[in-house]
């Protein structure tokens, strides 16, 4: 069985946070305690939507030491493949669901003298857990959080009232922008930077920090990619000797799983590298969308990350 260990949970609370974001609380269905976790960890939520099973990663935002419940926040994506819409429209309190054990691909560097958090939109969620973890151990942190508008600023009130000195909010519609160069310049030695938000924001922070001479190891980022819809395509799985079709609204990984082939995975968002698959033969164009393979690997035509990447063309044969 691929992926992390599973936990059977019950949805115990659903709270609309704003127009786009809803918070879900899970407790163990057997009444036991959930595993503790480290701030920045995510869980993969299984969504059984008719014939389709989607597994989407969401950052855990609750207190890592609280073993009674986990909470996640889901931003509705009306253009996506339906995972977030499913959570928003089909899930009710009392529903039984399956989630994975916590997996952390966005861990705090505990050597840091100071943790500088940069959040964009729903990217605030991992920081909520990390802040709770650091508060418990008197960690030194500072948050700069950019939101589109005041009304879409998830958890802004909670953050500014509990941590007024550490929290800095920026509203796009008021033309407030993080002065990143100045902010980086003023950090004490031993500061680590963490960024979670849209792709453009992550690139901006990484490039600005690199240009300012920050070591690569001191910049941490996490962006889960949701698989994007695309043209249907056919794939031959050489090891299991099957030909499968990948539908418009499913990922290559989901299509492989639907065919009954057990393929490794962990994050399902192009970040962790677990599902890396060798290409045996192809004639066509890859649509690589992952963060795992480097540019040379993308260009080589020898590897694909089936959780987020697609293919257009005549033939694709995978070593799976």
């Amino acid at each position, binding site marked *: 069985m691929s992926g*992390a260990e599973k936990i059977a949970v019950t949805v115990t609370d659903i709270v609309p946070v704003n127009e786009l974001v809803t918070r879900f609380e899970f407790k163990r269905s057997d009444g036991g305690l959930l595993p503790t976790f480290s701030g920045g960890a995510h869980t993969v939520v299984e969504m059984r939507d008719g014939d389709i099973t989607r597994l989407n990663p969401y950052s855990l935002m609750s207190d890592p030491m609280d073993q009674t419940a986990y909470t996640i926040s889901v931003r509705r994506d009306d253009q996506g493949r339906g995972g977030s819409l499913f959570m928003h429209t089909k899930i009710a309190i009392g529903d039984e669901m399956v989630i994975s054990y916590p997996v952390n691909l966005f861990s705090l560097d505990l050597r840091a003298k100071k943790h500088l958090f940069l959040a964009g939109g729903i990217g605030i969620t991992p920081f909520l857990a990390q802040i709770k973890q650091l508060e418990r151990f008197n960690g030194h942190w500072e948050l700069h959080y950019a939101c589109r508008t005041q009304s879409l600023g998830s958890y802004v009130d909670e953050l500014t009232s509990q941590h007024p000195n550490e929290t800095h909010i920026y509203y796009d519609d008021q033309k407030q922008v993080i002065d990143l160069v100045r902010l980086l310049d003023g950090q004490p030695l031993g500061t680590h930077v963490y960024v979670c938000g849209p792709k453009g924001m992550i690139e901006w922070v990484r490039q600005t920090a690199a240009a300012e001479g920050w070591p690569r190891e001191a910049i941490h980022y996490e962006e889960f990619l949701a698989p994007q819809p695309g043209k249907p395509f056919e794939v031959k799985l050489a090891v299991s000797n099957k030909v499968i079709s990948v539908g418009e609204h499913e990922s290559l990984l989901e299509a492989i799983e639907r065919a009954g082939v057990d393929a490794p995975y962990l994050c399902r968002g192009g970040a962790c590298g677990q599902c890396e698959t060798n290409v045996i033969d192809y004639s066509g164009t890859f649509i690589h969308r992952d963060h795992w393979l480097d540019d040379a690997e993308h260009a080589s035509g020898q590897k694909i990350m089936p959780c987020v990447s697609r293919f257009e063309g005549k033939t694709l044969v995978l070593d799976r």
Partner: protein
Amino acid sequence: MTIQFNEESFRDDYSFYNSERAIKRFPFPFHEDSYMYSVNMEQHRGGPKDSVYEKRFDVDEHYISEMRDRAIVLAEDPLRCQSLPHMTLAGWDLLELIMVSKSEDYPDLFELHRDGNTWRWINKPLGIDDTFTFLDDATLPYGPMEYITRQAQGDFAVLDQRDDNLWMDAGMVTTQADWSLDFDIGMNFFEWHAPVPLAHEKGIFVRALKFLLNIQQGAPARRLNWTMTVNPLLDTSPENYHKWGIQKTTLTPENIGAKQHLRVELQTFFRLPRSNALVFPIRCYLCSFQDLMTVPKWGRRLHRVVRDLPVELATYKGFINNRPMMLDYLKNFDDGLPTSPGIWPDLETEPPLQK
């Protein structure tokens, strides 16, 4: 099963011994008649009853004596236990993992009573009954990692995970096969494995690291490793090489059966939840050649493995000079019959020695 703890030593008079039960459950490391490196990992979730795989942390007849030996080593050389400042949370993770596992797996020997962050830990074999505040270092006589690993058999390397690598940033290492925590502290996975021959070229470490980085909470893994030790020494450290290295020259055809030990490490890997660090317990089991030869399958196989091992590996494992004498001894237990696959003794099904 109630464990009868041995009164024994791993130094000076070497009164260490294995009971018949301990021999049968010895983790013989060779699943076939030859040996080469591989990333031989499997999930660590139980195993055959009374095998060393059954519990998360195996406790056996050597427990009390091994903990006594550890205390002696630490008194002479405190640097065998080190924890860089950012690893304290991982130490608490490890303390929790061991206390919870042992109290659940051996309720007759260990008890853990938790009331919020007030914890009471009872270790009956060692006569310990301590109450402390979880996550408050000041309430324990040692740091959390040192406290619990003074009560747990085997060495413990606690590895920080960052920059797609693992870092040897904390550990308790007193029963090691010739490596030094004090030398390796702060090194990454490739740095501390640099001395190992052949494996780098085979890409073993790149694959092993990838596997280890992806070990997740709730899904521990394990593997066996092995070497050879003359006399039942737990502490075969570089720091004390001047004391034990010379003992390799004391082997004779008469004493080799009793003095030469196969040294096996049961290595397990657990993701630590609060710190996202990885703990790597390395549990050492020793068995003399003469005790191993009481299992016909192991006698046949050990001869073949030692005979056919590449020179580089016999050199790295430190027995190239003694190999001819070992083979003279071991060949008497190899009648050329085939052996059954797998590591288990198969005493009921494998034929006795045919000569």
